[in-house]
C-alpha cells in the first residue's frame, strides 16, 4: 500500500514541472551563481597581476666587478675561490634571476633596455615600471660589503601611475631585495652563513592549507552543500502541501474509506519524503561532481549523512502535514516554505560560513537540521574521519524521530474531525 502512495507522490511531482524545477533546478542555479561569484573569496585568491617592466643598467655589472677585483682585490686579500663566488653572486644578476625565476616569470615580463630607450619606455603605457640601476651600483655595493667603504647603493623604481597595483608589487619586490642586500652585508660582516639570505621559493608559491592541515573547501563545494541542504527542506513543504490538498479535496478521506490505516498513509508521506529528499540530494551532488568536480573522500560517510538528513526532512514533512490537518489550513506549510526555510538556511550557514560567527551562533546553527547536515557534509569534504561526523548524524536521526513523534501526536485520530 505504501508503495502505491510513494508511486503516486512521484507522479504528482513529476507532473509538476514548476515544482520539479524549484526542487532540482533552482539549487543548481544557486550553486552556479554563488559558487562562481564567491569563488575568489573562498579560495583566498588575490587579483592576478600581469606586469611588464624594464631594467636599465648604466654600466655593465661584470665590468664593475672586474674593476673592483682589480683595484681592491689584493688589498682585501680575496682568494681565487672567493673571487669566483663573488662573480657568481653579483646583486643585479641575482635580481634578474629572481625576475626570470619560474615563480615570477608568469607574472612579470622583464625587458633589459639601454639608457637611450628610457624616454621611449616612459611614454609606453604597457610598462608598469622601470628599474634603474645607478652607475657603479655593483662596484659601490661590493666596496661596502668587502671594504666597508661607501654606503649601500639604492635601486631606483620609476612607476607608471596608471598601473598602481603593479607598481606597488614591483616596489615591494625591490624593497625586499634591498633589505636582502643589507642583510647580506650584515652577515658578511659578522661571518654568518650566507645561505640564510637566499630567497626561498615558497615566498612566491600560493599553496593553501587549513589550520588543521585538511583539504580546504572551495566555494563551489560549500554552496553545493549549502544549497542542497536548504532546498531539501522544500521537499518537506512540497509534500506537506500535497498532503493538505489531499485532505481538502476529500482524497484523504477516500483513502481512509478504502480501509487504509491513517498510519499507513502517514508512513507513506514520511517514506516518500525521505526518498525524494535523498534523490534530490543525490542529483544535486551528482551535478556538482560532474560540473565542479566536487568529490567525496568518504562515500560511506556521505551516504550516511544523506540518509540521516533525509530522515530529518521526512520528519519535518510529516509534522507539517499533521499540523495542517489538525489546523485545517496550509498556512503553516506556506509559512515554513516562505519564511522558516530562509531563516533556517541563514542560521544554518547556507549563504555564508557560520564558522566566522560567535560560539553561540555556531551552536544554534548546528541545532538546525540543515546546519547539522552542513557541518557533517563539510567535515567529510575536508577529509575528516567518519567518527567526526557521527554526532551530527546521530543528531539528524534524533531530530527526525522527534519530529515524527510530534507529528504522530498531532495527526488527527479516527473519530476526530477531519
Amino acid at each position: 500500500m505504501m508503495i502505491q502512495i510513494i508511486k503516486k507522490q512521484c507522479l504528482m511531482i513529476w507532473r509538476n514541472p514548476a515544482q520539479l524545477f524549484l526542487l532540482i533546478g533552482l539549487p543548481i542555479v544557486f550553486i552556479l551563481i554563488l559558487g562562481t561569484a564567491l569563488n575568489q573569496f573562498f579560495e583566498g585568491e588575490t587579483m592576478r597581476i600581469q606586469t611588464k617592466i624594464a631594467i636599465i643598467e648604466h654600466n655593465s655589472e661584470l665590468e664593475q666587478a672586474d674593476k673592483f677585483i682589480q683595484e681592491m682585490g689584493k688589498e682585501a686579500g680575496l682568494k681565487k675561490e672567493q673571487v669566483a663566488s663573488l662573480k657568481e653572486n653579483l646583486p643585479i644578476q641575482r635580481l634578474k634571476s629572481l625576475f626570470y625565476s619560474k615563480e615570477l616569470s608568469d607574472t612579470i615580463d622583464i625587458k633589459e633596455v639601454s639608457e637611450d630607450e628610457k624616454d621611449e619606455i616612459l611614454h609606453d603605457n604597457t610598462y608598469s615600471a622601470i628599474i634603474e640601476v645607478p652607475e657603479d651600483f655593483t662596484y659601490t655595493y661590493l666596496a661596502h660589503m668587502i671594504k666597508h667603504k661607501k654606503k649601500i647603493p639604492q635601486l631606483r623604481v620609476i612607476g607608471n601611475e596608471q598601473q598602481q597595483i603593479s607598481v606597488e608589487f614591483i616596489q615591494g619586490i625591490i624593497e625586499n631585495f634591498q633589505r636582502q642586500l643589507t642583510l647580506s652585508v650584515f652577515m658578511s660582516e659578522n661571518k654568518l652563513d650566507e645561505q640564510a639570505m637566499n630567497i626561498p621559493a615558497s615566498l612566491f608559491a600560493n599553496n593553501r592549507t587549513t589550520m588543521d592541515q585538511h583539504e580546504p573547501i572551495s566555494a563551489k563545494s560549500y554552496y553545493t552543500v549549502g544549497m542542497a541542504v536548504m532546498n531539501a527542506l522544500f521537499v518537506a513543504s512540497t509534500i506537506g502541501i500535497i498532503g493538505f490538498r489531499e485532505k481538502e479535496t476529500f482524497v484523504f478521506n477516500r483513502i481512509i474509506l478504502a480501509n487504509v490505516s491513517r498510519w499507513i498513509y502517514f508512513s507513506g508521506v514520511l517514506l516518500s519524503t525521505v526518498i525524494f529528499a535523498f534523490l534530490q540530494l543525490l542529483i544535486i551532488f551528482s551535478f556538482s561532481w560532474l560540473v565542479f568536480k566536487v568529490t567525496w573522500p568518504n562515500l560511506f560517510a556521505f551516504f550516511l549523512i544523506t540518509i540521516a538528513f533525509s530522515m530529518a526532512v521526512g520528519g519535518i514533512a510529516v509534522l507539517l502535514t499533521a499540523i495542517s490537518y489538525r489546523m485545517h489550513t496550509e498556512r503553516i506549510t506556506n509559512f515554513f516554505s516562505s519564511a522558516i526555510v530562509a531563516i533556517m538556511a541563514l542560521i544554518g550557514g547556507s549563504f555564508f560560513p557560520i564558522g566566522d560567527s560567535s560560539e553561540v551562533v555556531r551552536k544554534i546553527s548546528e541545532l538546525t537540521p540543515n546546519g547539522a547536515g552542513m557541518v557533517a557534509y563539510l567535515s567529510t569534504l575536508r577529509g575528516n574521519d567518519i567518527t567526526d561526523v557521527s554526532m551530527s548524524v546521530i543528531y539528524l536521526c534524533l531530530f527526525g524521530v522527534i519530529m515524527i513523534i510530534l507529528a504522530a501526536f498531532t495527526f488527527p485520530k479516527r473519530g476526530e474531525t477531519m
Partner: protein
Amino acid sequence: MLELVNISKRFKQKYAVKSMNMLIERGEIVGLLGPNGAGKSTAISIMSSLVEPTEGDVYFKGQSILKKPESLRKVAGIVPQEIALYTDLTAEENLQFFGRIYHLKGAKLKERMDDVLETIGLTDRRKEVVKKFSGGMKRRLNIGVALLHEPELLIMDEPTVGIDAQSRNYILETVRRLNEEKNVTILYTSHYMEEVEYLCDRIYIMDQGNLIAAGTKEEIKRILSGEKTIVIKADRITESFINEFKTHPLINGMNVEEKQVSIMVAKEVNMFADIIKLADKASLELNSVNVKTPTLEDVFLHLTGRALRD
C-alpha cells in the same frame, strides 16, 4: 442493510445532527434531502464511518461500524461532493491508484478499470490528465473511482453539482443502471428535486440537524394532500405584491422565482379574486394563474420554509 440508530453529532454546543434514525434496505435508492446546513454531509460522514457520532450507533448488516468500520468500508463506495481525484494524474492513473488501495491488482484491476471506464463513458479519455477534463467528466470519474471495487452500497453526496444537463442525465442513467442491473443500494443526496423524484424509492428530509420527514415519494406528497399549489405568472414581481401574500392569512407557504410566485393554500380555498385584486393593486399584468397538485418541492418548502436550492 444500513441502519442509523439515534445518531447525534455535536460540534461544541451545536448539533449538526440530532437523534437521527434511518434505514436503508438492500437494493433501494434512498434520497436524502435538505437545504444547505441541514446536516446531510455530517450524516453521510457518520454513516460512511468517517466521523464518529457523539451519540447513537450505525449498523451495517447488523454490525456496528463504530466498532468494526472495515465491514462497511470494504463494500461501500463513497462519491463525495468534492472532486476527490488527483487532477495531475490521468483517469487511468487515478483508477489504478484507488484500485490498488482497494487491493485490486493484475488482471482483475485491469478488468475493473475497463469496466468502470465503460460505465462512466471515459474509455477513450483514459490517458488524459484529469485537470483537462470538463466538469461533467470529472464528476463521472469521481463516481467511477467509487465503483472500482464493485460496492454493494453507494453513498453519493450531490454527485451532479455544477455540471451540464447532458452529463447530469448520463450520471442519473448510470445510477439507475447500477441499481437495476447490479442491485447496488444507493443513498443519494441532491439539490435537484427532480433527480430525487426520478431516482429514489424513498426519501428522507432533513432540516437543522433533524429528520423532519421520511417515506416513499407518495407518502411524502401526501403530507400536503389537503393543499393545492397556485402558480401565478406576471410581467414582473414586485416587493409589495410579495408582501401582500406574505401577510395573507390563508396562504400556508410561498416560493418566489423571477416572474413567478407559487403559493400553497388549503384545497377548499378560492384565491382567484384575491390574486386579481392584489395584482391590480401592485399594477402587475397577470400572464397566467394555474392550480396544481403539490410536488415534492412544495412539500419541502412547506416543511423547511425554504426552497431546496436556497
